């Protein structure tokens, strides 16, 4: 939609007078008033191009009616539009006859058949027969244009939707119209595949079966599909999705357009990772350490596994129990676990984050911004992870806003990111020193400083590198609250429902409903058997305590600290140091293999509930398939354990849990089940209330630069060796092998050949990786992806230090 002025104009569509916004397109005005004009190329989230001519309608602006493409003309006062006149019908028939000249009509073998706009509109508006008897155009079909997308050029009607999306929305113009005239076809450059993180969207918006997704090809027919609307929990953006299944198996996700979040788009990881849920690697039965062979886990019954876990918890010294994880869970699950830990076990050693985010109190204490606010602020400061890799749809929204000049993006980063390409200014700072750089920018006489100070500011704040501790990010928050007191924050945490888990109290020092531990509300005192009073340990603290023999039982709720905690050495010592480890998970992860009892949990799509995105927006999750095994919902496991520990969580369904959350959590008061399930709440319910008063104490420490070392920078890639991706056949191959990227001058200085094997030495470990010379990496730093196949960065990171420096040597 073009920029609309507030003044309304009056337009007559099919004899009915309607009010439209000046500047609005005729087709959009018709849509808003329930008049459907057929179209192929027009898409409300992209610019109009008038390629397909299907939306021709008769328009009279005082000079008599004439055919005009309704996606290319704006409404004017007094305009008369007829979408059903004889002329319009003749035009529609003509266009469809033209479009079908070369379309192969292979509907019976086409994935799109049954949900195909070309098929549907041919039936609805087509002439019914063709005068064309010549041979149709032929191309090799289909050709893979990437690992995920196949292209059938015979079916293509050249609507420019996919190519426009790739260029305009995704910013990856890797598919283009090539050749011309009758030969025009969509193609990639030879040997340069359409490797966009957002390629799946082109499949969804293709109005014919020209683009098909490899993971869905020939898997189901649209009329066999069952569908529910849900929310994606792959990352914490919380995109709305339609989840589709066939024969009790997830087969496809489609993006659903909601205005505040995803605009209908999904990233490819979110779109295709359903394959992991039906992966044969899923944990199916409870496992227990074999009493005869301590190196082995053997299958057991739920009863035995739960009893063993409960016994271990009972035997543990008081307060020497810790619960790590919870961001995989639904809000209800997270609440159940928070209640189990607090009310039954009596500990506040709970942390949904794995030392890779920001403290829960900071997350809830900073004044929050929505994605929409970020996309309409005068300035967005991005100081955090590479949004393109970690929160792809937030990146897409921000990119769209920046490209339309609605927002000025300023980035302070230790290295080039996906954001840099559309940033107004991308300031490279030394890793760990963003706060210093920000402060000197804001206090300088740089024009930008004035621009930032004079307008509204949203800060997207997170950990720029997992080789940095949370301190540098907290320092940034403290500089901002000091220098830009009106700025709002969008905290860039990555994991699915991490925000919901923190809201539910799975963070040390917090109680459900964004309440500080030291000041519990009355409802919780009433409903919980006991409320912990001593602030517990965070994940790093728990692992450290366990390593020192100060923690007896560690419960991992969907957490894999060996892989995800930034300091593998500490995680390893922690897991070994704990007397008993219970792991609740979907997959046999590295940490699961080290547990004493393993309890299989149900996965996405197998349970309903609610989830909360980074903005604090609560939206619905829906159940569609049943778990293939003996897996149980996480809240049920918590309930069972509570019962075996002599407590009672007092709920027996997700709905009952929500009702209790609504009562106990002050921030969630008034958000009843009815509200959650109301149709209007498709967009989710934004919760802004918080009782957390933020007090940031700047440490003022600047990391010491080790003159000989390279500062390690490590971030996550969208496709990595993470559990979800590596159990997903279509995506696992997309994870690139871990390589150490270093500025060529550093390699030269050290006498290391580009592409050769090097030894990485840190205070924690020594390992081998391939060193690649990369001009874009600042001097004095080395970049290793956090968790890509080959070598993990958390081998080298010392989480006790604000930054980690490494040395590299030739082998």
């Amino acid at each position, binding site marked *: 939609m073009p920029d609309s002025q507030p003044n309304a104009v009056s337009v007559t569509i099919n004899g009915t007078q309607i009010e439209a916004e000046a500047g609005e397109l005729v087709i959009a005005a018709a849509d808003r008033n329930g008049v459907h004009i057929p179209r192929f190329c027009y898409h409300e989230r992209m610019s109009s191009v008038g390629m397909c001519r299907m939306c021709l309608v008769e328009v009279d602006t005082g000079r008599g009616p004439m055919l005009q493409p309704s996606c290319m003309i704006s409404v004017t006062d007094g305009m008369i539009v007829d979408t059903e006149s004889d002329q319009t019908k003749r035009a529609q028939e003509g266009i469809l006859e033209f479009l079908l000249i070369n379309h192969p009509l292979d509907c019976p073998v086409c994935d799109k058949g049954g949900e195909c706009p070309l098929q549907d509109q041919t039936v609805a508006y087509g002439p019914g027969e063709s005068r064309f008897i010549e041979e149709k155009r032929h191309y090799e079909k289909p050709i893979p244009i990437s690992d995920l997308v196949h292209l059938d050029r015979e079916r293509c009607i050249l609507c420019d939707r996919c190519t426009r999306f790739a260029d305009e929305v995704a910013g*990856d113009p890797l598919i283009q*119209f*090539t*050749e*011309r005239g009758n030969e025009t076809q969509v*193609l*990639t*450059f030879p040997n340069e595949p359409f490797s966009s993180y957002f390629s799946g969207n082109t499949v969804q918006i293709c109005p014919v079966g020209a683009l098909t997704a490899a993971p869905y090809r020939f898997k189901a027919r649209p009329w066999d599909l069952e569908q529910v609307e849900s929310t994606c929990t792959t990352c914490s953006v919380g995109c709305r999705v339609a989840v589709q299944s066939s024969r009790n198996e997830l087969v496809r996700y489609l993006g659903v357009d909601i205005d505040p979040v995803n605009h209908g788009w999904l990233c490819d990881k979110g779109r295709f990772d359903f394959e992991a849920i039906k992966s044969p690697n899923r944990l199916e039965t409870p496992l227990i350490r074999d009493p005869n062979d301590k190196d082995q886990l053997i299958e057991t019954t739920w009863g035995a596994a739960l009893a063993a876990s409960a016994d271990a918890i009972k035997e543990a010294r008081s307060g020497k129990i810790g619960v790590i994880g919870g961001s995989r869970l639904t809000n209800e699950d997270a609440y159940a676990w928070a209640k189990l830990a607090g009310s039954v076990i009596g500990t506040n050693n709970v942390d949904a984050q794995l030392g890779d985010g920001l403290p829960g109190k900071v997350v809830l204490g900073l004044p929050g911004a929505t994605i929409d606010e970020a996309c309409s602020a005068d300035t967005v400061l991005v100081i955090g992870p590479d949004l393109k890799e970690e929160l792809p749809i937030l990146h897409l929204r921000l990119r769209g806003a920046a490209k339309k000049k609605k927002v000025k993006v300023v980035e302070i980063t230790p290295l080039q990111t996906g954001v840099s390409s559309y940033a107004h200014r991308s300031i490279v700072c030394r890793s760990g020193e963003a706060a210093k750089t920000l402060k000197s920018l804001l206090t300088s006489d740089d024009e930008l400083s004035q621009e930032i100070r004079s307008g509204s500011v949203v800060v997207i704040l997170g950990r720029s590198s997992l080789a940095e501790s949370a301190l540098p990010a907290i320092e940034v928050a403290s500089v901002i609250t000091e220098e830009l007191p009106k700025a709002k924050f969008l905290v860039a945490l990555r994991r699915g429902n991490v925000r919901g888990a923190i809201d539910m109290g799975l963070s040390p020092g917090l109680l459900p409903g964004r309440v500080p531990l030291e000041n519990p509300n009355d409802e919780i005192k009433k409903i919980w058997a006991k409320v912990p009073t001593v602030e517990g340990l965070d994940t790093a603290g728990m692992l450290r305590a366990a390593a020192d023999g100060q923690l007896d039982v560690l419960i991992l709720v969907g957490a894999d600290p060996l892989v995800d905690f930034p300091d593998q050495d500490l995680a390893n010592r922690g897991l070994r140091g704990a007397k008993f480890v219970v792991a609740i998970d979907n997959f046999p992860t590295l940490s699961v293999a080290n547990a004493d009892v393993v309890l299989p949990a149900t996965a996405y799509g197998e349970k309903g509930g609610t989830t909360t995105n980074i903005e604090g927006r609560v939206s619905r999750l829906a159940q569609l398939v049943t778990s293939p095994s003996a897996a149980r919902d996480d809240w049920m496991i918590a309930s069972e354990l509570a019962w075996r520990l002599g407590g009672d969580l007092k709920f027996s369904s997700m709905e009952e849990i929500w009702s209790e959350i609504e009562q106990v959590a002050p921030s969630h008061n008034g958000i009843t089940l009815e509200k959650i399930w109301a149709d209007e709440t498709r967009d989710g319910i934004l919760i802004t209330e918080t009782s957390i008063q933020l007090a940031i104490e700047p440490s003022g420490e600047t990391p010491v630069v080790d003159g000989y070392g390279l500062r390690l920078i490590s971030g996550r890639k969208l496709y990595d060796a993470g559990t979800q991706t590596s159990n997903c056949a279509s995506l696992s191959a997309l994870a690139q092998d871990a390589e150490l990227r270093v500025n060529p001058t550093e390699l030269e200085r050290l006498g290391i050949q580009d592409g050769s094997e090097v030894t990485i030495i840190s205070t924690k470990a020594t390992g081998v990786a391939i060193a690649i010379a990369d001009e874009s990496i600042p001097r004095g730093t080395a970049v290793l992806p956090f968790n890509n196949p080959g070598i993990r960065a958390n081998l080298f990171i010392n989480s006790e230090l604000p930054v980690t420096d490494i040395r590299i040597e030739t082998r």
Partner: protein
Amino acid sequence: MTFFTEENLELAHEIIGRYPKQRSAMIPLLHLAQEQSGWVTEEAMKQIGVLVGTSSAEVLGTCSFYEMFKRHEVGKYVVNICTTMSCALLGAEELLEHAETRLGIKAGSTTSDGLFTLEGAECQAACTEAPCLQVNYRHQYRVTPSDFDQLIDELADPNNEETPRHGVLAQIRQHIPVERSVGAVHPDLVNVPPVWIEEKKEANS
């Protein structure tokens, strides 16, 4: 990755400098690439993409739109025989057939010595001079089969310097002096009217 010769790369940067938006230099650079190797190679398109800041797919999209950018190796001389209306009426088909026999190749292919590529072409806007043809886009009018044979003989002579090889745009290179250049100012950043408007005003007053 590096397709352009050092000299041409310098020229490429000069060409890019003439435009407020780098991307606008794409077609001139494609010409330069074709001039360098006689046709536009994949390496050329890749490097042009890097030089003007777009994907190579976008360069391919633009390049493939234009028939006169050749994406396959062609002969030193590309002979286009017009086969549209006026020429067709005055013997273009016979001329094309004669050309095929004389060169021993079908239209659309290149002689084995790499000298000639023969093509049937659309109207060359010389209908009063039918039948006509072009050699590297230089017109020949009212061509009879014997004219054609003579033309081929002349072109095949290694001493022939009159028609430069395919891809050469001009034999005299034009350079725009810095003071005449528009300058690489992005259109969005231009907030004053162009200098020449002021100059014109002064001259007129």
